[in-house]
């Protein structure tokens, strides 16, 4: 089966972003960028399905500025077969990304699309669910285990009280949670090989999608800072303060 894996270029998870002083957004100029961590888990899962002989081809897709091709290269180095870059300078919100992905899926006819559950920049947690809706496919979100058997996929999901297992008919959309797998590091030979793998570039208009944002950012501010409190010297002092000063126990 063919698997599509969208990968998002985001600010590296180790970077603490700064809010711009004019309140127009966060300052990401010159900041280290990387693949969204949940998307690494998606790529890894797709590669494992290929290693098991279940997947036959993995297509990594990224959307945005030309530098998103680097994120696709990372996926290719991990084991994806080819890439598609949807190139645009426009801001892409999850609805637009889902529509672009749906248009690509209509052409590529995959049996499975694996996405990260959430991007660590906009924290929307929406694209996978929206893509499933647009395609009329079932969704297995926040997956910690997947098992493909015939024309079905069994997905164990991370839910609030523990785990839930559901069965979806294929084709389906999966979104990945933390414990699904531990993504591999690309080896140097694989990074070299990835340079030769093809990346096709298309524009949103080629896919017939209007990507106009529906949400306008009016302002971005830093949250109120918490003041550091006091250090206590002993457990006894801590308990006394919680009782008499904070009055929470």
């Amino acid at each position, binding site marked *: 089966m063919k698997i599509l894996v969208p990968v998002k270029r985001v600010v590296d998870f180790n970077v603490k972003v700064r809010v711009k002083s004019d309140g127009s957004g966060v300052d990401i100029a010159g900041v280290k960028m990387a693949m969204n961590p949940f998307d690494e888990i998606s790529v890894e899962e797709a590669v494992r399905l290929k290693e098991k002989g279940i997947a036959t081809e993995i297509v990594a897709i990224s959307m945005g500025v030309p530098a998103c091709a680097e994120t696709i290269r990372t996926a290719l180095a991990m084991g994806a077969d080819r890439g598609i870059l949807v190139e645009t300078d426009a801001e892409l919100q999850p609805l637009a990304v889902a529509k672009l992905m749906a248009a690509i899926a209509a052409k590529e006819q995959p049996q499975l699309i694996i996405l990260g559950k959430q991007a660590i920049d906009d*924290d929307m947690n929406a694209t996978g*669910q929206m893509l499933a809706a647009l395609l009329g496919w079932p969704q297995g979100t926040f997956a910690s285990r997947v098992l493909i058997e015939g024309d079905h996929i069994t997905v164990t999901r991370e*839910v609030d009280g523990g785990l839930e*297992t559901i069965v979806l008919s294929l084709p389906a959309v999966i979104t990945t949670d933390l414990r699904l797998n531990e993504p591999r590091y690309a080896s140097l030979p694989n990074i070299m090989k990835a340079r030769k793998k093809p990346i096709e570039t298309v524009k949103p208009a080629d896919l017939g999608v209007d990507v106009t944002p*529906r*949400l306008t950012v009016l302002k971005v501010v830093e949250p109120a800072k918490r003041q550091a409190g006091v250090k206590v010297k002993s457990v006894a002092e801590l308990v006394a303060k919680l009782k008499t000063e904070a009055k929470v126990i």
Partner: protein
Amino acid sequence: MTALVLLDHEAGAIKQPSRSAVAAAQALGEVHALVVGAGVQAAAEAAAKLPGVAKVLVADAPEYAHALAEPVAALLVGLAPGYSHLLAAATAIGKNIMPRVAALLDAQPISDIAGVVDADTFVRPIYAGNALATVKSADAKKVITVRAASFDPVPAEGGTAIVEPAPAVASPSMSRFVSAELSKSERPELTAARVVISGGRGMQSGDNFKLLEPIADKLGAAVGASRAAVDAGFVPNDYQVGQTGKIVAPELYVAVGISGAIQHLAGMKDSKVIVAINKDEEAPIFQVADYGLVADLFVALPELAAELERG
């Protein structure tokens, strides 16, 4: 303008995060609530008692038993014409279902709102809560999930809403529930607990989480964990407090052996009082803690349990 709130319920009661979602919806206009499930009469009656809810719609059918995204989203889309806003708490159920609803309505969801400015404009955290964005939606219908920790829940009692069956909507059949393995605990749920005590990588093993239990018992606390502790396999993921786990805002949050990574702080920094116990006095957790104790947790935890026992 009328808002419809999809409620999470369990054992005939409306869960606290959903009561916070009702509170958020009250800022938008008249509030109707939707109770979905199989055999949910008690939950519907509980929903009718929520102050501020004018009407409760009940979809009681076998296909809704496990709140699968496909049938519940189809139901919400069927109900959408009567509403300007569709909301749910940002719980596993709300996060799963609401974006699907939004796509079917050609709307961009507004996830995890922490504030309501007006009917079109909302505040939501981005970058793990390191920034707060005020966003204005151009969509005809707003589809919203609500960060429960940011809104005081409406009380469980006091209202008298009318209860009506929701109109039937055809359910797509492409997913099937198999089983659930829910963590068994006598303790309160993380997102509803008045006190939360969490362990981090410093706990060193899952077994050592037992050191938190006598303290949690004494304080009536829920037990949580940092992502590092979950990644290390000490505890299951449903313990996780943070950007990619649960967002909590209890009266008292006790962080034990947690360094204070951005992603963890994103999940607990709205707590009223924060206590940090860590042997590294440079740990970033101390920058947000009201009370910090620099100590070896393996010494401090038994002491704390004994001190609380003394009363």
